[in-house]
């Protein structure tokens, strides 16, 4: 043991002082003062608190609180409102006059004021459409139409291919968003026999280049054009579809509601199409005019159009 350990603490000039308490006769405690930088830091926080109390909402008094001297000014209708500093007022100001909000609003108005043909040609407008559209699509559309508009076969239309039941022009896409769409095909289980359903399904597959039984195709064509089924009334004589009523083209080998490409062979394909003709389908897209402004819808329509499949 060194000699120092034998000395009592607190003795000598260069020794640290003790607190002066003795426990169990000779146990005592060094009194090391706080470093100066720490102490001044502490005083600084006290001063900060005093300034804060004066400027911002701070102390509860009665059933209210001190509102502080700082204020926020934002627009309310045509007049300016000044209120005590608070995050909600700050938000209004940010939404109205914040740098990014203003830039976004200006661009939105500018782009929405253009014709679709102009928008699609203009690089600046399209870069805004892509940036803004991605966010809005992610918020409102992606839940059904999936990332990139890939859709879900049987449920939600693919927006990135050439298959457009209601038309793929920007104006038509806009209309779908504003009004919503209800697609309906009746099930034919009561109106056609199983044989007829199979035949007409074979015929429809043959329109898309699948090699089906020739007799079935021939019989199916008669069912397709015949009075009982009335397929031609919606899908047209050549199966080209009618956009104004959302009847899809049956000849482009693009399938939204029946997973034809996922089937193993022609037999399975026939089965899947027959199943669909048998059951029918009803799908609804809600109207988004309730949630989105006209400007937003226009930009979003241009975005959807640019996903790859627009006409």
């Amino acid at each position, binding site marked *: 043991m060194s000699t120092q350990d034998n000395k009592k603490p607190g003795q000598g000039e260069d020794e640290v002082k003790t607190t002066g*308490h003795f426990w169990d006769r000779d146990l005592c405690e060094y009194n090391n003062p706080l470093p100066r930088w720490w102490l001044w830091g502490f005083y600084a926080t006290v001063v900060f608190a005093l300034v804060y109390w004066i400027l911002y*909402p701070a102390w*509860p008094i009665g*059933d*209210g*609180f001190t509102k502080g001297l700082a204020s*926020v000014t*934002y627009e*309310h209708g045509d007049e300016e*409102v000044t*209120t005590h500093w*608070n*995050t*909600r*007022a*700050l*938000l*209004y100001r*940010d*939404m109205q006059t*914040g740098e*990014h*909000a203003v830039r976004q609003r200006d661009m939105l108005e500018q782009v929405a004021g253009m014709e679709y043909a102009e928008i699609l040609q203009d690089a600046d407008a399209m870069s805004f459409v892509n940036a803004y559209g991605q*966010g809005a699509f992610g*918020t409102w559309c*992606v*839940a*059904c139409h*999936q*990332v990139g508009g890939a859709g*879900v076969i049987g449920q939600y239309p693919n927006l990135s291919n050439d298959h457009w039941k209601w038309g793929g022009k920007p104006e038509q896409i806009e209309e779908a968003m504003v009004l919503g769409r209800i697609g309906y095909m009746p099930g034919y289980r009561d109106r056609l026999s199983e044989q007829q359903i199979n035949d007409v399904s074979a015929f429809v597959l043959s329109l898309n280049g699948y090699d089906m039984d020739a007799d079935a195709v021939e019989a199916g064509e008669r069912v397709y054009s015949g009075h009982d089924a009335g397929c031609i009334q919606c899908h047209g004589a050549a199966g080209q579809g009618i956009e104004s009523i959302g009847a899809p083209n049956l000849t482009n080998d693009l399938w939204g509601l029946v997973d034809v490409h996922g089937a193993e062979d022609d037999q399975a394909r026939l089965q899947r199409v027959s199943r669909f003709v048998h059951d029918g389908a009803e799908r*609804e897209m*809600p109207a988004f005019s309730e949630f989105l402004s006209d400007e937003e819808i226009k930009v979003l329509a241009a975005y959807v159009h640019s996903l790859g499949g627009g006409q």
Partner: protein
Amino acid sequence: MKHESVETNAGLLIVLTLAVISVGGLVEIVPLFYIDDTVEEVDGVRPYTPLEQRGRDLYIQEGCYACHSQMVRPFRDEMLRYGNYSLAAESQYDYPFQWGSKRTGPDLARVGGKYSNEWQVQHLIDPQSLVPESIMPGYPWLAENPLDMSDIEDRMLALRRVGVPYSLTEEEYERNVEKYGEEHARMFDINRAEESLVEQAQAENFDGNSATITEMDAMVAYLQVLGTMVDFSEYDDGHFAEFR
């Protein structure tokens, strides 16, 4: 009091320590109970119906809160993504509230009405079937488990005890009729809780299966009402800034 007497008396030291460290909490929390504007006055906020309340219990039971917050903060990016920021008033009948701060999944404070019932059902059964990049686990059993509604009255009684205005007496019922209208007041009547629950589940058939009332009915009923009670178009910009 001398330093030495505090340091040598463990009991006194504990009491004084507790007193000192509670000051911060007391100063920050207690005034909230008597400041008038803590909970904003706003039209439309009502207690949950029995079915929604069961959905809320399941939300907690399944641990949804571990990944989803229910609190849209007053920032522009959140307004753009989720809708109006959350008001204190909107969770006044939540015991406990589900504000949270951890967002592994998106905030759900305003998810009500954003997606269809069918979407919610499919998404809860198999999230990846609708959102391939999602990391949310599926909850397929919700659609299979019949909803246990045997203790709905006890649940409502417990909530009534902490301040949710579910009615037990005729007088309380009348008060609810005045405040929330008859249709809702009937839903908040503990005496006919199970009846109301079945009625709503059958009328709205949230899970698309009309044969049984499942946990899915309750869960979707709850999700679809989240954040929809206040009609913000009725209020001016700035109205709610007065409360903070």
